[in-house]
C-alpha cells in the first residue's frame, strides 16, 4: 500500500529542509540532535534519555510487525454543544487535523507484535491535547468490543490532558462508557495492557487507563489525576520535580513497571507471552502496512 499523501509531502519537505529542521534541540539536556538519529533512537535523546512525545502513527510503525488494520476512522467528531469561544469548536478540530494529520486523538486498529495478534489503541497529544471526547470514547469502546469478539489481547497507549471541555458532559460520560467496555472485555479473560505515556491525566487516567490488567509506564512520563498546576494552586507551593512522574508512581506502587521506550517492545512481547494462550489466537489479519514519520 502506498504511503499516504501527507506523509509523502512531509518527506519531500524533510529532504529539502534547512538546518533548523534537520537538527532538533533536546529540551532537557540542550544537546543538538540530528533528526534522523532521534527517529532511529525511537525519539529518545541519545545523550540524556529524554523521551520526545511520539506521533501515534510513528508509535504504531515502530511497534507492530508491519501490518496495521485501522478501524474507527469513520467515527468523527460533531459539535454536540455548539461550542464557540475564541473560535467555533469545529474550527479548532479542523486546525488540529491539519497540525496533527490525525482525524482524532486516538488511532485504533489491529496488528501483530512478534506474531501475537493484538488490538491496539494509540492516543496522540497533538490532537486537542489528547483530550477524551465522544470520538475517543467511541473508538476505544469500539476497539475493546472488537477485540473481545476476536478474543484478542488489547494494548492501549494513553496520552491525555483529560476530558474535552468542548463536548461537556458527553465527554465525561466517556469515562463510564470506556470503563464498561473494559469490564466486559476483561470479564471474559482477555488481557488488557495499558501503556501510560506522557502525559496521562484526568478522565483518561481515572477510567480505562488504570483499569488495565497490567500497567506499564513509559520512563519520565507525567501521570496523575489532577494536573500539576491545579495541585500547585490548591496547596500554594511548588511540587517536587519528580512528583507524578512514572518513577514516582512506581515507588508508590501505582504501576507494574516503568520502561525506557527502547525496552518497551520486547517487554510487551514478553508480557503477551506470559499471559496469552497462543493457541487461542488465530485470527487472520489483512496485511495493510502503515508507517509515518513525525
Amino acid at each position, binding site marked *: 500500500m502506498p504511503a499516504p499523501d501527507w506523509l509523502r509531502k512531509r518527506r519531500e519537505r524533510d529532504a529539502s529542509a534547512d538546518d533548523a529542521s534537520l537538527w532538533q534541540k533536546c529540551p532537557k539536556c540542550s544537546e543538538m540532535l540530528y533528526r534522523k538519529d532521534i527517529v532511529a533512537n525511537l525519539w529518545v535523546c541519545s545523550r540524556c534519555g529524554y523521551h520526545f512525545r511520539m506521533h501515534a502513527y510513528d508509535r504504531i510503525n515502530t511497534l507492530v510487525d508491519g501490518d496495521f488494520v485501522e478501524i474507527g*476512522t469513520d467515527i468523527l467528531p460533531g459539535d*454536540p454543544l455548539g461550542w464557540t469561544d475564541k473560535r467555533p469548536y469545529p474550527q479548532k478540530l479542523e486546525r488540529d487535523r491539519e497540525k496533527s494529520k490525525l482525524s482524532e486523538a486516538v488511532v485504533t486498529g489491529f496488528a501483530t507484535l512478534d506474531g501475537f495478534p493484538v488490538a491496539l489503541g494509540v492516543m496522540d497529544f497533538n490532537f486537542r491535547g489528547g483530550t477524551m471526547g465522544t470520538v475517543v470514547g467511541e473508538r476505544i469502546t469500539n476497539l475493546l468490543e472488537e477485540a473481545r469478539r476476536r478474543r484478542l489481547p488489547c494494548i492501549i497507549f494513553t496520552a491525555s490532558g483529560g476530558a474535552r471541555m468542548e*463536548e461537556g458532559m458527553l465527554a*465525561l460520560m466517556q*469515562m463510564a462508557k470506556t470503563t464498561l467496555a473494559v469490564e466486559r472485555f476483561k470479564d471474559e479473560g482477555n488481557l488488557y495492557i495499558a501503556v501510560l505515556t506522557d502525559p496521562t491525566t484526568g*478522565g483518561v487516567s481515572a477510567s480505562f487507563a488504570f*483499569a488495565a490488567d497490567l500497567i506499564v509506564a513509559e520512563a519520565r512520563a507525567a501521570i496523575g489525576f489532577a494536573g500539576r498546576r491545579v495541585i500547585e494552586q490548591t496547596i500554594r507551593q511548588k511540587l517536587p520535580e519528580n512528583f507524578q512522574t512514572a518513577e514516582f508512581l512506581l515507588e508508590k506502587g501505582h504501576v507494574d513497571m516503568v520502561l525506557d521506550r527502547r525496552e518497551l517492545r520486547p517487554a510487551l512481547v514478553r508480557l503477551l507471552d506470559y499471559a496469552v494462550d497462543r493457541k487461542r489466537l488465530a485470527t487472520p489479519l489483512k496485511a495493510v502496512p502503515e508507517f509515518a514519520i513525525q
Partner: protein
Amino acid sequence: MNLIVEREKSLSELETRLAQLHERGIGGDEMRALETKVQELRQDFFGKLTPWERVNMARHPKRPLASDYLGALEAFDELHGDRHFRDDPALVGGFAKLRGHNVMVLSQQKGRDTKENIRRNFGMVSPEGYRKASRLMELAARFHLPIVTFVDTSGADPGIGSEERAQSEAISGCLMTLTHVGVPVVASIVGEGGSGGALAIALADHVIMAENAVYSVASPEGCAAILWGDSARAPEAAEHLKLTSNDLLGFGIVDEIVPEPLGGAHHDAAAFIGRVFDAIERALERLALLPPADLLDTRYRKYRRIGSWREDSPVRAGGLA
C-alpha cells in the same frame, strides 16, 4: 459571595420593610406596590435561572446536604473505612432503609460550617473514600441490596496525598465496580456534580437530578482557567458547558428531574427530599423487576450510546491527506 444569597438578602430587606409598614399600619397603595415588587422580584430572581445562577444555587450554603438526605431515611447505619488506610469523612456510606427498602447508601458529604467542612474536606473525596465506596458496593451486591447514591461534590480531592495514593486508580476502581455489581444502582445529583469525582458514584441504572443541581465535566472556574487562562470567566464557561438538569435530560445523561420550589430546594427541604425519595423509590421498584443479567446489559447499553459523533465515509488509514 453567593449570587443567590445576595438576592435573598435584598429580597429579605424588602420583606422587612414590608413588615415594618404593616406593623405601623401603613397600607394602601405604597404597601401594595411594594408587595407587587417583592412578588415580581422573586419571580425575576428565581423564576428562570441561568446556568451560572444554578451553579450558585447548587453551592447555596443552606442547600440540603447529604446529611439531610441521610437524616430523612427511616434508618441508617454507617459503615466506615477502606480496610487499608483511612476512613474518609468526605464519603459517607452505610446500610439504610428507604421507604421500607433495605439499601446501601453512598454520598459525598460537604460540611455546613467551616469546622465541618475542614473535617469533610469540603466534600472532596480522597482515594480511600472511593475505595470505601467500592468496598460497600461489592458488599451490597453480595447481599442483594440496591445501591443509592447522593452526589454533591465540586470534584475529587486534588491534593498531594490523593495523588500519592493513586486517585486515578481509586476513581477508575469505583467505576469498574459499578460496571459489574448486579444490583440496581440509583444516583441522585442533588448539589454539585463535579467531574470524574462525581461520576465515580453516579454510573447508574437511573440518574435523578435536582432541578437546580449542576453536573459538569469541569467546574466553570476550572474550565475557564483551562480554556482561557482566567477563572473569573466562570459564568461564561457555565453557559457553554451545558451543565443544567434540562440540558442533561436532553442528552440522555440524566433520566429524571425533580423540580425544586421557587427559590431553591432549601425553601422546603423536607418536602423536596421527600420528592427525591419518591423518585428513588419508583426507580428501585421498577429496577427490582430486572434479573441481574438484564440489569447489567441495560446498564451497558445505556452508556454505550451516550455521545455524539458523525459517521462519515472512513478517513483513509494513515492520517488525513
